[in-house]
């Protein structure tokens, strides 16, 4: 009896593995959407899933791609990093998707990398990240450190005359790497090492009183203090509330955040935070016709006029449209052909300039610095010309010698000194 039950169960499970044959093969182009819909990262990633569905719907309304309809395959890696690898493999081998849009955290990307490199998949990664990586199979549509962190620090140094820096971050690889790069950069700009205060807090940290008072006390030596925050996600809410309570106004002690956008601000009352800063490549308040159309499209799709747009959404917007154009240009969804066609693709971004895909698989992006307004939006007070994304930072000796070029050198980790390709796979 037990035998049959067990065997039944086993065969039942095995049958789950058989690929779904819901659509006749070859009828559709499949796009995998690999964003967490449950767990801690759902806060940020669900929006991106919706963005992708919206873009795909719009493309289908325009007649699809290569004469076929696009089908989204949405999976839920549930904020569980090993599950990202599992789901990516499933998307590539079972669902046979042509491209994937997904991931948010660095660790999820590192989890997916070996899988897509092994199976030669294609991933569009839409979030600002720490750099120090370039994979043949990934297009990085978010900002590299030189497209967000360095210009923001330049703004601090040049415009606000900050002499002392507090680098506050959540303890994971993006803040750690960014802060290391910034430390090296600041020292090269003549800021003494003692004038750089670094603190790392856990994810979701809520007890900020001591850290805020530590930062305020930094001003005791008469130097102007500025905070660079790489604090992640909802920990920011407690942080900003504590800042407001401590009476830390932007003109006394500005805070420039790299992970706080419209979405995070919608979780708190910003009237006490007016004037604090954020650096992104996109703000919802950008005054261009493309942006207006995008926001209207988003509101119509999500059926909620209050929902905001943010930088990673723009990254998906650019990435998706570039991919569509590359597929059209290549006439196929074959990964290698599309990858080649991607390099050099140009597409207008939402802030009035044009994004270009570089041979290192990064975009050119303008850097915008915004001041928080009382309504939770940003006043754009500085916008640079598009900056070319740099996979390997120039401010740390070990990566300054490295270069990524998938067009001519065909290598993502090329040592310019020894003129050799360190490795073809990426660093995971």
């Amino acid at each position, binding site marked *: 009896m037990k035998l049959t039950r067990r065997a039944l169960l086993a065969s039942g499970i095995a049958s789950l593995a058989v690929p779904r044959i819901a659509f006749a093969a070859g009828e559709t182009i499949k796009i995998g959407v690999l964003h967490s819909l449950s767990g801690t990262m759902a806060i940020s990633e669900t929006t991106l899933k919706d963005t992708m569905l919206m873009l795909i719907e719009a493309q289908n309304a325009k007649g699809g791609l290569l004469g076929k309809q696009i089908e989204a395959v949405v999976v839920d890696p549930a904020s569980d990093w090993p599950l990202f690898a599992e789901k990516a493999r499933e998307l590539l081998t079972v669902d046979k998707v042509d491209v994937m849009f997904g991931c948010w955290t660095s660790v999820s990307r590192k989890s997916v990398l070996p899988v897509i490199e092994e199976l030669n998949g294609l991933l569009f990664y839409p979030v600002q990240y720490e750099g120090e990586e370039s994979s043949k199979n990934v297009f990085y549509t978010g900002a590299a450190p030189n497209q967000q962190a360095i210009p923001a620090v330049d703004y601090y140094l040049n415009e606000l005359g900050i002499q002392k820096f507090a680098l506050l971050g959540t303890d994971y690889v993006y803040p750690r790497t960014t802060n290391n790069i910034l430390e090296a950069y600041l020292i090269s700009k003549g800021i003494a090492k003692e004038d750089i205060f670094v603190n*790392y807090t856990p994810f979701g940290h809520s007890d900020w009183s001591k850290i805020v008072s530590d930062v305020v006390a930094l001003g005791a030596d008469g130097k102007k203090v500025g905070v660079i925050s790489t604090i992640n996600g909802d920990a920011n809410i407690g942080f900003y509330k504590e800042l407001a309570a401590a009476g830390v106004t932007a003109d006394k002690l500005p805070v420039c955040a790299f992970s706080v956008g419209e979405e995070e601000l919608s979780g708190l009352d910003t009237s006490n935070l007016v004037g604090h800063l954020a650096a992104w490549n996109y703000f919802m308040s950008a005054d261009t016709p493309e942006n207006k159309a995008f926001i209207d499209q988003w509101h119509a799709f999500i059926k909620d006029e209050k929902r905001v747009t943010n930088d990673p959404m723009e990254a998906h917007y650019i990435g998706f449209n570039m991919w569509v154009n590359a597929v059209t240009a290549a006439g196929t969804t074959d990964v290698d052909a599309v990858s080649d066609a991607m390099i050099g693709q140009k597409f207008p971004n939402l802030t009035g300039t044009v994004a270009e895909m570089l041979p290192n698989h990064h975009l050119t992006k303008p850097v915008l610095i915004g001041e928080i307004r009382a309504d939770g939006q940003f006043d754009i007070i500085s916008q640079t010309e598009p900056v070319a994304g740099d996979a390997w930072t120039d401010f740390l000796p070990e990566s300054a010698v490295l270069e990524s070029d998938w067009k001519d050198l065909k290598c993502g980790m090329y040592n310019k000194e020894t003129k050799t390709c360190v490795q073809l796979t990426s660093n995971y």
Partner: protein
Amino acid sequence: MRTLLICLFALLSVTPLRAQTVAEILSANAGLIEKSSRQTIAPVIDALAASGDPMAAEVLAAWQEKALAIRKGDGAFVLLKTTSDGYEVRDLTGATLGTATKTDVTELKPNAGVRAMIATALVQFTLSDPDISKRQAALDSIAKDPKPEALLPLRAAIKLEKAPTILAQKQRLEQLLTLRFDADPAARVAAITGFGADLGLDLRAALNPLVVTKRLAASSPPDGNIARALQPGRDLSQTEAYDLLVAAGLALPRLTIEAERAALLANLTDGMVGGVALADLASQAARDRAYTALEAEGRVPQAMTDAEAKAAVNDFQFYDVYVEPDAAVTSAASAALTSIGYRVDFMQAADLALDGLSLASIYFLAAIGLAITFGVMGVINMAHGEFITLGAYTGYVVQQWVPNYTASILIALPLAFAVTFAAGVAMERLVIRHLYKRPLETLLATFGISIALQQIFKNIFGTQARPLTSPAWLDGALSFNDVVSISYIRIAIFVLALVFLGFFLWLMKRTRLGLEVRAVTQNPGMAASMGINPDRINMLTFGLGSGIAGIAGVAIGLFAKVTSELGTDYIVQSFMTVVVGGVGNIWGTLAGATMIGGLQKMIEFLNPSNTLAAQTYMILFIILFIQFRPRGIIALRGRAAGD
């Protein structure tokens, strides 16, 4: 307007040197102003301030407040005033031009750096302005960026000042500027000693730049105000000392591994370098040997050995030299800083204690409900965290309906209690009641409820954090001085925790319900035979514990975030609070919370750059603590302790 501007332009081109009006200056520099940067805007601001135009101050102020704009039609600068449906527009002479909408004008958004410069330029107009708030702004601007030039106008303004608070501020600021910038050293020393051991951040900010030192290497004691002589090996390491020599051009840089490698590669001939075969160069010693051989041949530059480097360091002396030349001032400043330092240390300890107390009260509030359900009833409610979340969301929902923050909080607190009380009672009736005989399984069942509830919250409220805003009277912080302060919201949580401690004690010790609860806990069979209905008591007790969790949720939501994960952050912490304190005793929970909160702040203080480490060590400590006091700080004796 357009013709007027053209005329102005014509005038400008003919007579560039005559005193200009504000409008002229602005239109001449329109490009600079539109993309204003602190690097380039200074001449424009100076010109505006010096123009003598009666509108200069107003235009500058408008620019600073982002109320200056360019009209899209003709590119003219205009002043804006926000009205309900657009803007009221005035030109630069102050004349009203009518109204405009958002699309008619391009608002100028000067960045904070430029705004600070404008504020500095405005000081001369506003230091004695009849409007107190403008005088205050002028003082803030000077304080933010102290400059020697501000000293004289400030002294002049003091004589005219009538308002006592502003006068005191002006005098303090004058003293702060005096001690930094006055020409007379005696006046500076007097100003320094005049402050005594004042705790103000501004004083330390003024004193510290006076004692800034520069480290240098010299062969004989240098001129200037020497802070101290340094001994290599004691005050600074040999490497640092050598680096100083290199930086000063007094010694050559040491040979690095990379440079050695490059030199060897450059001298590679026929698979041999300096008599060593290429294949043998796989060790540092062999590479050094090859380099020495090359050195002997004179093919590579001489590399300094360790002994030579040490000798070079010994040839020089190392000093810290004050940047400030006057010895009297530096010694007064460092003496003042030392005495301030002691007081600051003391105050920091006080601040730390306050922080610890505040954290303890948050832990206590989060754990007090658990102290009832787990501590008194012995039910392991893993969904306790979700009850906290439920309370916070109740607060959020109330704020959607009641826009007045004070009223909404007053409604939210009892409502959160009611909602979570109901949820607790429902859970007790439906699930826990059946599992009293199997407590470890309540853990699993309530864990199931916890993950289900969490997902339901996500489905209802979305995954984004929701705003829960405290009323205005809870904004800000109570500061005793520039070191010790605590935000009002934390004080409120502290008070709330005390109230609930009192409530709990009253309920347990002074009411019929409390008596029955204690009876049922100690011996349900006996209690039942005395006419107490254990079912009813269990239900009420559990509801009570859950209800308090709901109130804790509102409080926690007010100072942190409201997301579906809110409760998860507190659940393990809360269980540990109860266990460390000792189960079944509210004083134990209080002691547990105090210990955990205080300890965490203490460890954070010892390791300020890594808060995560503080939490790790705190939990390690708890684990060890429980090994040695398995029943917690305040252990119950006898049967109730479960032995």
